[in-house]
């Protein structure tokens, strides 16, 4: 297990997970019907074809990734040093969006939208600063987007009181 960690990099994990997804995809398709039924193409034929085309690409990328990491280990010693900038900001964005989506139909646009925008501004800034300015911007953006969608394009958003 000690040697597995360096290999858990996106260049290996992405093709690996894509291959897993392709396998699930093709199994799920084949459970519906075989690719040919009475000499005609069935609902699983196209997914099967996609599996046949994409699998070699996924395997090649996976092997290339492994090879690149092995080479890196051989050159730099035993540990692969990832020098990429790490940040929790993308994870925070996922969190904010997920909370927004979960609560949107319950709390509605008016309450959630300014909060959502405010937190986004906080994330995009380098440090928490100009809070009052951000609150004012968040409210203004909420109003503009509401007018644009609800009045301009006649879209009905959920609201707590509706």
């Amino acid at each position, binding site marked *: 297990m000690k040697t597995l960690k360096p290999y858990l990099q*996106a*260049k290996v994990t*992405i*093709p690996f997970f*894509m291959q897993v*997804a392709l396998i699930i*995809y093709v199994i*799920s*398709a084949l459970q*519906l019907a075989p690719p*040919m039924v009475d*000499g005609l*193409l069935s*609902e699983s*034929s*196209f*997914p099967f074809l*996609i599996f046949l*085309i*994409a699998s070699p*690409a*996924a395997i*090649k*990328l996976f092997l290339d990734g492994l090879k690149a990491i092995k080479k890196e280990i051989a050159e730099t010693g035993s540990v692969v040093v990832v020098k990429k*900038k790490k*940040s929790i*900001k*993308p994870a*925070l*964005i*996922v969190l904010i*969006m*997920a909370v927004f*989506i*979960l609560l*949107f*139909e319950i709390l509605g*646009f008016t309450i959630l*939208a300014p909060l*959502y*925008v405010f937190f*986004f*501004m906080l*994330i*995009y*800034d*380098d440090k928490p600063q100009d809070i009052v300015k951000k609150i004012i*911007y*968040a409210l203004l*953006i*909420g109003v*503009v*987007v509401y007018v*644009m*969608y609800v009045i*301009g*394009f*006649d*879209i009905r*958003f959920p609201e707590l009181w509706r």
Partner: protein
Amino acid sequence: MDQILQILAGTTVVFQPLSLLYLSIGFFIGIIFGALPGLTSMLAIVLLLPMTYTMPMTYALIMCMGVYMSGIYSGSITAITINIPGAPSALMTCLEGYPMMRKGLGAKAIGHATIGSAIGGSIGALLLIFVSPMAVSLALKIRTPGKFSLILFALVVIVIVEKKRMKAILTMAFGIMLATVGMDPLKSVSRFTFGIPNLIEGIDLTTLIIGAFAISELFDQAMVNNAEYKKITSAANSVKFKRREFFPTFQEMKEAGWKTYLKSSLIGYIIGVLPGAGASMAAFVSYVEAKRVSKHPERFGSGAVDGLVAAETANNAMCGGAMVPMLSLGIPGDGTTAIILGVLMVYGVVPGPDLLVKQMHVMAPMYMALLISAALLLPLSLFLFGPYYLKIVRINRLVLYSSIALIAILGVFAATYSAFQMGLALVIGVVMYFFKKQGYPNVPFILAVILGPLAEQYMRTTMTISSGNPLIFITHFDSLFFLLLTVAFAILLPRANRRADAMEKKAEDKVKL
């Protein structure tokens, strides 16, 4: 002839006040999104997509044309002033525009870029108007087996033109996997729903597009240091141009060479017709050609006007070219036209020869809008707003991206009225973000989403027609033609690409310096 008359009649629609208003809105949205590094005209249309649902289709398409043309052009503004291409298609513009800027000729460089873009955009749009009737008569000859082979050709070309082909295949497969979720196109069977009832209707096109392009971009932008961004853009803020400085003299335009304008327009248009190639390739090929025929190739890289003109003329001429296969065959020429195709699909319009024969009156204003937005570049950019374009980079990044975050997620709701689809958009955004980080191209994704289901439908229908005999694909002339074309492209394009990749890498390194 009748079609051309109908297209000309579309002019009256475009000149109605409301049409002009939508065209202007699109034009300025395109200018803003194109000029700001990180934002593209494609993202602008992605965000506009859900808003078009309640709009008459003609206005929606007119607005998209404004965004498309001006978004490609305005990438040159920051390319010239701060050496950062506002849009990927402006990479070659950096090579000549920025050295001109350093010599104190920045305004003139923007002027040349504007004239080139206006000429290229207009020629591209005119070619679209006059060539599309011919394309329609050809398209009418393509039957179901040929349609499958044509899509296959498009998908193969899209993969080949990408530098990282294996990654392009995987992104494409991912797009097709998502597009096949839901009801089978020919039978009443649901696929890949894994017992989730919400998936029976499939994943909405808006969900896929917003997730893949808008939400993934939000993650990317979170990594940008705000203070650093401000520092870079303050260089553009400090630049001040006078209006009269924008106008190149007639002699200077002559030096760029009339042939350069015409040849680059043709190159841009032809590359636009090629599925998946896009504006970046048009600019690159045209630039290389200009250098090849130049009497002073040694000037290239240090402010050669003909190089700048070639790149800018070609990338705007591409817009007209990319519309030809999209409208006549339903095959988008680039990522932006793929999303415009999505706009058409929202209205239940299926592009193809039938559309252009029977509903030309609906499409005609769109053609004219493309031409007018190209022509508008001259008066609006040179006479009116040119000096103010530099102030676009002053727009508060935090306000801009948090607005995009709200518009994007609400856009999914507006299109689907489903929180489930909003969640799916988020998941797709996360996956595409990881893909993008590892250099997986995103254009094959959107083209796969659009073309994948069509490929399946035509493949299975053809096999049903032939009672399961695959020889039908080579016994029909139209199908055989596209299959042979696919083989030819599969052999020839990689060779051409290898040379192009090496030269483009050199250009990229130079821009970084």
